[in-house]
């Protein structure tokens, strides 16, 4: 069999507390660290959203205790207009980067990709460890902007120039706050690039005997495709943040044109291009949102298959569809810039790939639905969230169809329609993907089951609650409700305020429901029902580890050998209704897609 002895010397288990839990080289610990980071980030981001929603619904009312967070930002506990924007910017930055890019990709991917390919660890464990700590320090830098005198930047997570590039003259938080934001994001980029390096080399070079590319589970494919996207997208964002920092502190003028006057003062910059920032940012920004959703697609596919007891209608078509989403995602970024002042012909040019990208998304959804047909669907919390993902992704995807057309975008750009669209796909669908992964893989990660009753309550409140919050955003947008307003003072917006109040109440209640998840997570970690090695009767390699949680080198003395594609469920003539990848049991080749 496989001789591990020569190798064991390189990969012996750590012994000290620091090397086991803090500066660990073990991809499983790193995955859990990323999950912990995302958990802290999502709680902060959620509280920020509560503050925003309360302020929008009851604008000049004091929010008890707010002045403790910021005396400048909330004198007498009443949020100032700038503080609203600062909280909004932080909410979005934290959520997009430290939750949606971190949890589905860095957390679950780090933990499960090496196991699903049949490896002991990733090939560059030191870089992997560095990737977490660099990301974590990025998070600390971002959080520190809450505590500088002027507060965090208020320019939105998109930080459009010249507002972001001119400096303190353009508003509160636009001095140090912007620089801290840019440094934080720059660090995040480095962390992601190091992560992508590991993910790609793991997938290509570390597969165990018998594990061809087509025998990889869909979650592994999703992480692989995402890491390739991350490689190219973050490599463009980092230069953009460097240019931004230089404009800010070094007096350059990459993004600031001449002749700008703020507070009656002519600004010293000249010649820069404000649209250049938008092009650079969105070239990153659009692939970024696919980076946020593709791992969720992989996780949801994986969870659904295990719970449907049958493979997808076509494994390869799903892989090709996810791959086409990745490729097309680079060609559509201008749809964020239809009315930006760029050449209107470019707007038309960008709208066609944007409409076309609907096709692979539709294929994915149809394959999911078509696979549920005729299956033996099992309902548990993980599969509920996976099904919820499908419903949310349909809803969010459909609203994207409006925004893909420049002429309709004239009406909907920068309104709540856009906010509703991206919250449905990101804040709900992607988060549901994280939840599905959590409930599904928690037993493997911690050796205990999460409580199903609490899980189901969590699902129902979140599913209904999320629709109550974000569906109305679309109505607001159609009515012309502009986004990023801290209050609604325009005449035509007054009739919409009651709807905002409804949304706020829904948001607060749905947010409270997440505490059930938090309790479940922590309680089950220590006192949950002990889990078997394969509680869901899954077939992929994570369910064949010798212990649960897996040992330090994942598979013990010998690496597994793989004999089939990953989704041999309900196979006729098999001894059980599933055949594990590691089982030498012969399977009719017609059933084996690999």
């Amino acid at each position: 069999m496989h001789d591990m002895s020569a190798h064991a010397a390189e990969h012996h288990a750590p012994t000290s507390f620091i090397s086991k839990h803090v500066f660990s080289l073990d991809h499983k610990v790193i995955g859990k660290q990323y999950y912990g980071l995302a958990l802290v980030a999502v709680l902060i981001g959620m509280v920020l959203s509560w503050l925003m929603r309360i302020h929008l619904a009851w604008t000049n009312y004091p929010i008890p205790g707010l002045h403790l967070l910021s005396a400048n930002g909330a004198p007498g506990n009443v949020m100032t207009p700038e503080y609203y924007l600062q909280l909004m910017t932080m909410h979005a930055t934290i959520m997009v980067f430290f939750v949606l890019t971190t949890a589905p990709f860095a957390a679950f991917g780090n933990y499960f990709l090496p196991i699903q390919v049949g490896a002991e660890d990733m090939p560059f464990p030191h870089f992997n460890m560095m990737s977490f700590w660099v990301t974590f320090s990025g998070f600390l830098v971002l959080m520190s902007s809450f505590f500088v005198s002027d507060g965090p930047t208020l320019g939105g997570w998109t930080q459009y120039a010249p507002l972001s590039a001119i400096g303190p003259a353009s508003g509160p938080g636009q001095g140090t706050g912007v620089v801290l934001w840019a440094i934080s994001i720059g660090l995040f980029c480095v962390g992601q690039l190091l992560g992508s390096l590991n993910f790609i080399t793991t997938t290509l070079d570390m597969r165990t005997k018998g594990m061809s590319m087509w025998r990889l589970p869909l979650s592994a494919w999703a992480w692989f495709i995402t890491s390739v996207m991350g490689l190219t997208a973050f490599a463009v964002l980092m230069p953009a943040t460097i240019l931004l920092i230089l404009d800010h502190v070094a007096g350059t003028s990459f993004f600031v044109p001449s002749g700008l006057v703020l507070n009656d003062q002519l600004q010293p910059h000249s010649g820069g291009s404000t649209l250049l920032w938008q092009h650079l940012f969105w070239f990153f920004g659009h692939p970024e949102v696919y980076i946020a959703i593709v791992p969720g697609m992989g996780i949801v596919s994986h969870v659904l298959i295990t719970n449907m007891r049958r493979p997808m209608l076509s494994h390869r078509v799903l892989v090709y569809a996810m791959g086409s989403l990745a490729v097309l995602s680079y060609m559509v970024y201008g749809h964020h810039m239809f009315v930006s002042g760029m050449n209107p012909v470019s707007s038309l040019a960008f709208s066609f790939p944007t409409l076309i990208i609907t096709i692979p998304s539709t294929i994915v959804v149809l394959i999911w639905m078509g696979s549920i047909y005729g299956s033996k669907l099992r309902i548990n919390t993980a599969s509920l969230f996976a099904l919820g993902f499908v419903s949310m992704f349909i809803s969010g995807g459909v609203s994207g169809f409006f925004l893909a057309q420049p002429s309709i975008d004239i009406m909907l750009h920068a309104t709540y329609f856009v906010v509703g669209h991206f919250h449905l796909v990101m804040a709900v669908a992607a988060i549901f993907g994280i939840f599905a992964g959590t409930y599904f893989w928690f037993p493997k990660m911690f050796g205990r089951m999460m409580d199903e009753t609490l899980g189901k309550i969590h699902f129902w409140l979140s599913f209904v609650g999320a629709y109550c919050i974000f569906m109305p955003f679309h109505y607001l947008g159609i009515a012309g409700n502009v986004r990023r307003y801290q209050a609604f003072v325009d005449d035509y917006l007054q009739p919409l305020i009651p709807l905002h109040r409804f949304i706020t109440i829904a948001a607060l209640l749905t947010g409270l429901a997440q505490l059930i998840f938090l309790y479940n997570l922590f309680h089950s970690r220590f006192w949950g029902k002990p889990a078997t090695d394969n509680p869901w009767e899954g077939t992929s390699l994570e369910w064949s580890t010798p212990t649960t949680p897996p040992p330090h080198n994942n598979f013990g003395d010998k690496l597994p050998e793989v004999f089939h594609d990953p989704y041999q469920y309900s196979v006729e003539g098999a001894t059980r209704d599933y055949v594990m990848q590691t089982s030498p049991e012969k399977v009719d080749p017609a059933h084996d897609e690999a």
Partner: protein
Amino acid sequence: MATTVHDPPKIEERRDQLPVISDSGNGGRGTLVPASGNFRAVKDYAPPPSSTGIWVVLASITMSFAAFTSALIVRQGSSLDWRHLSLPRILYFNTLLLLASSFTLEVGRRQVGGYMSGRKVGMAHPARWLYITLFLGLLFVAGQYIAWQQLRAEGLFLATNPSSSFFYLLTAIHALHVLGGLGGLTRVVHKFNRSTLRKSTLDATSHYWHFMDALWVYLMFLLWFKL
């Protein structure tokens, strides 16, 4: 420079060679076993991870410099304040230094590789050319610093003009990556001296260095054309 003769590394190095086709395993880490049975669509050979990894790294560096290039092109076209910048002469000399260092690196790589695989025995200083490469690399960075000094003497600083901004930016970021490459080369020499060097590490580091060279040639063209 080391004067003692080292034994060629044993197990690590052999792992990196192409295994015989009948072996079925995925290189790099100890899973070399003879094949038994018929595995459809299973590769018999996988490259060591650092070989794939280095291309991943180079791809992302390429994307970053592509972003900087497009920023330069757009910025130049967006306003009339662009002033032509004459490249300091020393840059041409620095380019020659870097090209020479790629040459010396190749010589060094072959010598060390040959020594490690046992093909060239009794070599007194197998890593000599690697040390020369390191030296040339350091000279290059020093030369870049001199180029900046020369520009500063002419009154051209980072924010003086968009052309000078891009000059400092691109050369500085390239120099940073070159320093990284020097770090990698140092690590290679260090590992070689302790007989723990893998061929894949040596190759990957060399690829990186040559890429820095090619990138510099590209930047020279870009700066020369555009600035």
